[in-house]
């Protein structure tokens, strides 16, 4: 896949298939396969149930993704705002008639369909902001005035999702949104004071606005070690699993913490712990490495895209992936509080996989339809 080989717009179906970014697809498949073998281990060495369902779901979604990626990239720009505002309307719907599951209202039932609009918003925010900055006069892009609409576009869904309450997803939406604003060229002179103000405001609020019980709640949240049988149980068990694993791990299907069910949520949010326990430091770093390469390949797609929309959208998706991975792995090893973010492609669960794969349909599409004249692939 050298730059010189990419001559002209792909025309035939097979030609277009051949020009797909197979490196990205291979990584996606590898990571999903890691998920399958980990679910096999979670199921005590049985194919029935999750392992097959995870693999099967990925296969179907991958076929759809490749199919969609072959469509013209301009289609994504056309649907950017409709997707964003559609998702926003659905989020309002959740607010007023959502379904409560496990203490949080995230689901919306539309006839037989049950969905989480916050997941659509993860893609929607990226598309909408990329659309907003596309073709904007570069002199305006970084200014304060022109930054007000995107800030509002970020604030509205973040506020709604946080109210569900789903701290993890709202953080993800906010971070992806702010990241795109940063990439679009928001001036440093606004970024630095805003950052300082945000941190200062939070600290001031902690000391002067909040009640003691609210402060206590934040303290336990930030320091789960203080309560190892309550909030901290997950993390404590997770640290035991990873810490006792050693360089090469306890061996596939041999993780004592995970096989003994000490590890909660090991098929969803804490699956990285299981990788760490059974395959050791090497296994954990290998999986992290694959994600990192996937992120870098995504940034490469972004850098090679000719249009601003393509660049920002691809980078936004890459950023979302990186945030997913960083937040998930940091929380299972006790670096940050537990917020409930799955490890994409590996954790069990259709919604997160669908969201991320939709993102990669966009990335693959952008990559396939990048303009031949664009040779600004200076990075790689």
């Amino acid at each position, binding site marked *: 896949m050298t730059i010189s080989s990419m001559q002209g717009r792909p025309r035939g179906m097979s030609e277009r298939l051949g020009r797909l970014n197979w490196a990205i697809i291979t990584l996606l498949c590898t990571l999903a396969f890691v998920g399958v073998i980990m679910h096999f281990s979670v199921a005590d060495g049985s194919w029935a149930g999750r392992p097959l369902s995870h693999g099967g779901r990925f296969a179907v979604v991958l076929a759809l993704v490749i199919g969609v990626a072959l469509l013209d990239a301009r289609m994504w720009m056309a649907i950017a705002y409709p997707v964003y505002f559609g998702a926003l309307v659905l989020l309002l719907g959740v607010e007023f008639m959502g379904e409560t599951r496990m203490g949080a209202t995230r689901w919306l039932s539309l006839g037989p369909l049950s969905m989480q609009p916050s997941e659509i918003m993860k893609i929607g925010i990226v598309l909408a902001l990329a659309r907003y900055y596309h073709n904007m006069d*570069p002199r305006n892009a970084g200014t304060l005035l022109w930054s007000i609409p995107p800030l509002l576009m970020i604030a509205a869904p973040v506020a709604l999702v946080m109210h569900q309450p789903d701290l993890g997803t709202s953080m993800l939406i906010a971070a992806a949104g702010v990241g795109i604003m940063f*990439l679009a060229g928001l001036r440093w002179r606004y970024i630095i004071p805003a950052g300082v103000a945000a941190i200062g405001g939070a600290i001031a609020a902690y000391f002067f606005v909040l009640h003691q019980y609210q402060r206590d709640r934040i303290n336990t949240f930030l320091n789960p070690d203080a309560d190892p049988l309550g909030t901290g149980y997950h993390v404590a068990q997770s640290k035991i699993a990873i810490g006792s694993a050693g360089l090469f791990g306890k061996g596939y299907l041999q993780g004592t913490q995970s096989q003994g069910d000490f590890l909660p949520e090991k098929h969803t949010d804490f699956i990285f712990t299981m990788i760490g326990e059974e395959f050791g430091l090497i296994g954990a770093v290998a999986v992290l490495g694959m994600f990192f390469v996937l992120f870098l390949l995504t940034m490469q797609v972004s850098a090679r895209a000719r249009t601003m929309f393509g660049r920002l959208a691809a980078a936004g998706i890459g*950023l979302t992936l990186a945030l997913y991975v960083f937040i998930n792995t940091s929380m299972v*090893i006790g670096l940050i509080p537990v917020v409930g973010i799955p490890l994409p492609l590996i954790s069990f669960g259709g919604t997160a996989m669908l969201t991320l794969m939709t993102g990669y349909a966009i990335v693959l599409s952008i990559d396939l339809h990048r303009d031949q004249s664009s040779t600004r692939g200076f990075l790689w």
Partner: protein
Amino acid sequence: MTTAKRDLHSVFNRRAILISGGSTVVMGAIVSRLAYLQAENLVTDTYTEEARDNRFDQRIIAPPRGILYDRFGEMLAVTSPDYRVFLIPEQVGLKNLEPTIRRVGEILGLPEDVIVRRLRDARGAKRSDPVIIRAGLRWDEFSAINVRLPELPGVRADASLIRRYPYDIAFAHPIGYVQKPNQAEVDAVIAEGDERRAVYLRNPDVRVGKSGLEASLEKTIHGEAGWRMVQVNAAGRVVDEIGGETREPVPGPGVVMTIDAECQRGAMERMAGMSGSCVVMDIVTGDLVVMASSPGFNPNEFVNGISPSRFRELNEDPYKPLFHKSVTGAYKPGSTFKICTGIAAVEAGLPENFRVNCPGYFPFGGRAFHCWKKGGHGTVDFHAAMKGSCNVFFYQAGLRAGQQRIADTARLLGLGQKYDIGVPSVVPGIVPDEAWWKTKRGNEPFPPGMILNTAIGQGDLLTTPLQLAVMMARVASGGKEVMPRLVREGPGIAPAKEARQLPVSADGIKRVLDGMFGVASEPGGTAFRTMGNLELWYDPATNKVVDAPTAPAGHKQVQVGGKTGTAQVRVITAAERGGGVKRNNDIDWKLRDHALFVCYGPVHNPRYACAIVIEHGGTDEERYPGTVGYIGGGSAAAAPIARDVMRLVLSRDPSAQPPANIATLEAGLRRPQTVKGRA
């Protein structure tokens, strides 16, 4: 492309590099954290240890309880393997629960109601907890289940330890039984702060003594629990039992009791169908050779939990099988108390030739106090009064002695006090005197007539069969302070001390024993017809006893001394007396008099003292058809039992045989081993 646009692109590129770089830093932080966790573990082993603590759970292995032996080493309470079959609901699966239980029921031939009950148990239980379908399987049943286990997933058979009482009802009262600790006991232990013991008590295999010696010797014979480390998952479910560290339990030490199982069983059999108690005591050592309370109950029914309906049945039985009558039953001693009155009177200076004319009543304080013999005994001396149990003589003797002296003598002889022989619910009884009256009735004047009731063993006096046996033993031993004991040898059990001489009148004792000889061994004595000829003979040279209808050459008759007694249960009214006292046959069983008999023997060399109380004087024909009907007071209802029990005791002469030695008994013993699970 415009310059501005190129600028924008270069801004984007710079920032994309920044973001990629930032990501690399975060990535590095995560990797170093991963490495740090393992490096930390390499140094401190924290996580490895915590992982191990997580995985392993200590499973308690209940120790085999110490064996209780009779004085000759016969096992009375043992710990033996219990074969049982159980299932784990979640391994069977909800759908298969019914067919599986039915199949097991079919193999074992369980009745339908048991199957239905087990099915209900299994549905109600926690899905991971074993549900016992049947315990106490015979070996062939156990094998039958074992060969079919492969076709019964989720069903298991194993062997645990169970306490068994081979003599069933014969030792129910002195030995008692074990049961699972109840919630109150666990709570009490928690309240004491002994969390570890509380956890131990909650183990389903653990049993604790609930009554009798099982309860009082709990700490001695319980043994030390062992444990086994098993691999568990977070739900506490065992995933692997093999290879864990194990400490075998230490079996509890055995204890040798004073009881002779043969005599005890004989006494229980003899009292079958009656409500009463029989205590036989060695007058030298205080050994309780027999301590029987009838009817008995089967302690084996209690070990694995008795059904509420069965318990109610036992508890509401008018014969009170659960009641340990030997120590808990308090009865008026009736005429057996004349032993105390007699000794006290002699001590008070009753002349050798003291005689009384008995017309059948004694006028006192404007009332007539009656003798049991309607026409009276005529003129009687001490010997004749004992022999004929003349109330009038003892009214007068009692007046000579005085309430306090009688009470003091009775206490010295062992009445009115509790004996710690290792069984619970021992009652002290009552020996009335002025001090007692004060605590009971305050400043009310002491009734002068009380002395008369006391003198003949009625009124407020209350004694237990054990106390009566102690009284008999102390008198028969010539006034030694014999203390009863139920345990001969065991950890922490002191050997019997030489009994000290009691400050009671030796002359009084001599005259009482002489009178008692008259009662049982002289024609005309109230118990002569039953006790006069025991058909036992002894060789004066060797003291060896022979059981034969007539005396072998050179042998002498084995004789006993005794005293009958009848304790009034109802008050006989004057009106009734006028119209003739109702015959006991005509009145309700519950209102009939109690029959008592105390005796000692052999007279030529006293060794055993015996006390018998038969409640309401005999058997209830309605309840136990075919048994002997009501036959009267002490002489008729209690003495025949004493005859048979004494014949057994005197011919076996347990005190003359070498007793079992705990060291020898336990040395050759193959203790039942805990069988590792996974059958």
